[in-house]
């Protein structure tokens, strides 16, 4: 229950600027109803541990109780906890995917399931991805089997401003509210480059060029600033304007309560977007699909903006032509926040393998990236970009016990998650199918019979 209360409080903060124009004492809509699965005190012992803080511990233990990490270290005493022998195995924080479309572009990918792009106007800040999330997407379960404990689900990239994202705990529920990460701030999806100009240019309306894109963002922020000022003015005098869902979300960004996640491939476009953010006084939390982040790594570090990248996707469109395998390593090396994301219902299951590719590629040019450093790209760094780093993303006392026990080194292609704990509860066990979730859709298929393990 404490999570629900926290969620309501956090959600109230997010739209605090508009409270004057709403009925008092009404719960924020669509608040999280997430409840952790039932868990028990657990002591994982004798593992190789990557803490997510940049540290590696050998032959160490993790103690979990009441959904939290109690301690990480050597020779811990469990005091009645279930002891799990993890010798020869590795333990990491739960994997966090900064960029997913699970639920909004679910499997099977039929036209009737295509709920990720409200491609009817270039600015649709009023739509919320959570209202498209289908909790029975079998992709949640396969992602869980890949060690994913939290993810951000975003609207697609057809629009300049595509709408609100939502951060989920990867515990499939009946409704999206059952999965919403308690206390996580909302995100706003923005998109640079080819997609918006292709989608709208193809319809004969603006934007049809990159300069049209930029005019579109700036016009939206001008409207948002105006709305914010009018709302503030009516607090003391005059009649409040009609609530505007689109502008409410944009004002949430200007007020620093909603985090900007900006799909942007090219380095030169990232540089322009950073200037737009300065012009209107907001922050870009992360660039996604940042194929050319390595060209502007210093700018990213300077602006404290994360770059979320694929290990090796490239060339499928012009703005992806300059992709290199070492991208994330160069960003990390420049002191910026590097993240490996999936944008794929298949890739999300193997973010550890994608990270391994970058480690290997970097080694080709003499950059030695230790496992304890690289694991941050899929744990603590995405937690930071989602504004949930205080709660999860590392193995530290007091944090949510979101934990993966791997069969070996997570950066080996042969390694698989053995157990995945979310808030201290065993959510997935490769060796005990009876506890593993099966979505409604999957019932009756070979996957339900163990095929999609």
């Amino acid at each position: 229950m404490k999570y629900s209360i926290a969620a309501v409080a956090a959600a109230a903060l997010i739209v605090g600027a508009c409270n004057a124009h709403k009925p008092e004492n009404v719960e924020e809509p669509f608040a999280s109803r997430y409840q952790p699965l039932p868990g028990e005190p657990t002591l994982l012992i004798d593992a190789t541990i990557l803490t997510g803080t940049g540290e590696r511990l050998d032959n160490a233990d993790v103690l979990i109780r009441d959904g939290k990490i109690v301690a990480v270290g050597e020779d811990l005493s469990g005091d009645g906890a279930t002891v799990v022998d993890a010798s020869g195995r590795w333990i990491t924080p739960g994997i966090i995917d900064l960029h997913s479309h699970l639920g909004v572009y679910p499997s099977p990918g039929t036209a009737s399931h295509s709920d990720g792009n409200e491609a009817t106007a270039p600015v649709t800040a009023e739509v919320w991805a959570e209202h498209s999330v289908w909790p029975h997407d079998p992709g949640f379960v396969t992602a869980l089997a890949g060690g994913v404990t939290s993810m951000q689900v975003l609207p697609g990239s057809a629009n300049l401003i595509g709408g609100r994202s939502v951060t989920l705990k990867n515990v499939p529920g009946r409704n999206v509210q059952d999965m919403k990460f308690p206390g996580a701030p909302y995100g706003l999806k923005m998109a640079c480059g080819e997609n918006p100009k292709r989608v709208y240019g193809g319809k004969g309306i603006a934007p049809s060029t990159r300069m049209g894109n930029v005019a579109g963002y700036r016009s939206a922020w001008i409207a948002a600033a105006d709305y914010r000022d009018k709302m503030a003015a009516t607090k003391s005098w005059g009649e409040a304007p009609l609530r505007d869902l689109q502008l409410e979300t944009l004002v949430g960004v200007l007020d620093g309560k909603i985090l900007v996640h900006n799909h942007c491939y090219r380095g030169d476009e990232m540089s322009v977007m950073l200037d737009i953010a300065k012009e209107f006084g907001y922050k870009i939390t992360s660039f996604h699909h940042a194929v050319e982040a390595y060209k502007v790594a210093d700018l990213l570090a300077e602006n404290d903006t994360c770059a979320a990248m694929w290990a090796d996707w490239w060339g499928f469109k012009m703005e992806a032509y300059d992709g290199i395998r070492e991208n994330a390593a160069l960003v990390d090396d420049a002191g910026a926040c590097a993240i490996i994301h999936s944008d794929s219902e298949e890739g999300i299951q193997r973010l550890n393998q994608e990270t391994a590719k970058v480690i290997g590629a970097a080694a080709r040019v003499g950059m030695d990236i230790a496992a304890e450093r690289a694991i941050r790209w899929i744990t603590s760094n995405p937690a930071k970009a989602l504004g949930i780093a205080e709660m999860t993303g590392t193995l530290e006392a007091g944090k949510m016990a979101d934990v993966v026990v791997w069969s070996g080194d997570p950066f080996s292609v042969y390694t698989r998650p053995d157990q995945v704990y979310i808030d201290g509860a065993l959510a997935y066990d490769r060796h005990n199918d009876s506890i593993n979730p099966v979505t409604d859709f999957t019932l009756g298929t070979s996957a339900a019979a163990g095929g999609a393990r």
Partner: protein
Amino acid sequence: MNRSKTLLILLALMAASGVAAETVAIVGGTVHTIGPQGTLENATIVIEDGFVVMVGKAVKVPDGARTIDASGKVVTPGLFSPIGNLGLVEVGLSAGPNDFAQRGDAFTAGFDVADAYNPRSTLIAINRIEGITRAVIAPAPGRPAYGEETGDVGHVLSGLAAVVNLGDGSNFLERRAAAMVVNLGENGSELAGGSRAGAMLTLRNALDEAIDYRDHKDDFERGARRAYRHHVADLESLQGVLSGAIPLYANVHRASDIEVLIQLVADYGLRAIINGGAEAWMLADQLAAADIPVVLAPQDILPGNFDRINARRESAAILAAAGVTITFADDQSQTHNARNITQSAGNAVAYGLSWDDALRAITLAPAEIFGVAGRVGSIEPGKEADIVIWPGDPLELTNFPEQVLIKGESISMTSRQTLLRDRYLQTDADKPPAFRK
């Protein structure tokens, strides 16, 4: 510059450009031959004029041979990408050439992508420095590209695939008309007007017309035969399919569609290869009996559509155990990232396939499937020397090739991507990147 240094550079240049008919010895490595010799520790491979001439532990290095020290390294045959559009595309969406699809009313089975292949494409170097030395280049269904919802669509019969080598660009074509691509199931349904039955009918009709044309060519040429739905060029191409020289390369996933395909192949006496095959594991014994190989994406187990609802991670292991020849490709990325077939192979191992079978699946197996195993696919005397030297296990994603030989020549280990990388590694340069070379 002293004379010996000049000589060394000259030799290196000659090696790189392949002007010399040279002798090369790769010594000291753990050699996975994927041939009858199995795996050999601390072995020597001798290459002459592009061909492997000797492999073994007690092989003497010939005088004057260029020696490559592979001690502590892992040596494998070159990797073989079994499908994709290398050399037929630069940038997928809204940019540059896309030569892999024939749309509109023109040719179908006669469409031959070999004529569009560009051996100088940037994709070639990017993939070969990661170990891909041979590739099937295949026509694709030709649906409008992502985001381009309008325009002509392609055909149930997409046309002819070819096998190329990714060597120096001369004599790149290994085998023309290596397979005939046909789209069945949900793929074919879209192209045939709304039903998978229509796709199958289109295929049978094409084969029947090709038979009629074959048996009544004189009448046809005299104008004494009814008009065919297909162009003569298409019916000519289908003759190879009817004779069994060209296997059908069927894009198909659903078990029921595969069952219909097995029946059709038996009815007409054809050969077939399945691409995709998410549900092929359900028919493993039938596929083994019919000698139909499967090109799998073993890690893709989500039902992208209802054709793939019973996909499972153990597919590769199940098919291999039944005796089906398998190879790997990732439908989503088999062109720009053909190099990632090692990841498919590694994941197949994680779910039960033996390591040896996995390496075979990305080297010799595709060479067999596409009819070039007499020349490549394994490290054996008499075969062309496509060889990759790895720092360790080639299926581990942290390992990248250190050297790649194609037809006995050490290729340059640079690509457009390594050049970009090296340019941006120079962070202390005092001029903009365009001035760093």
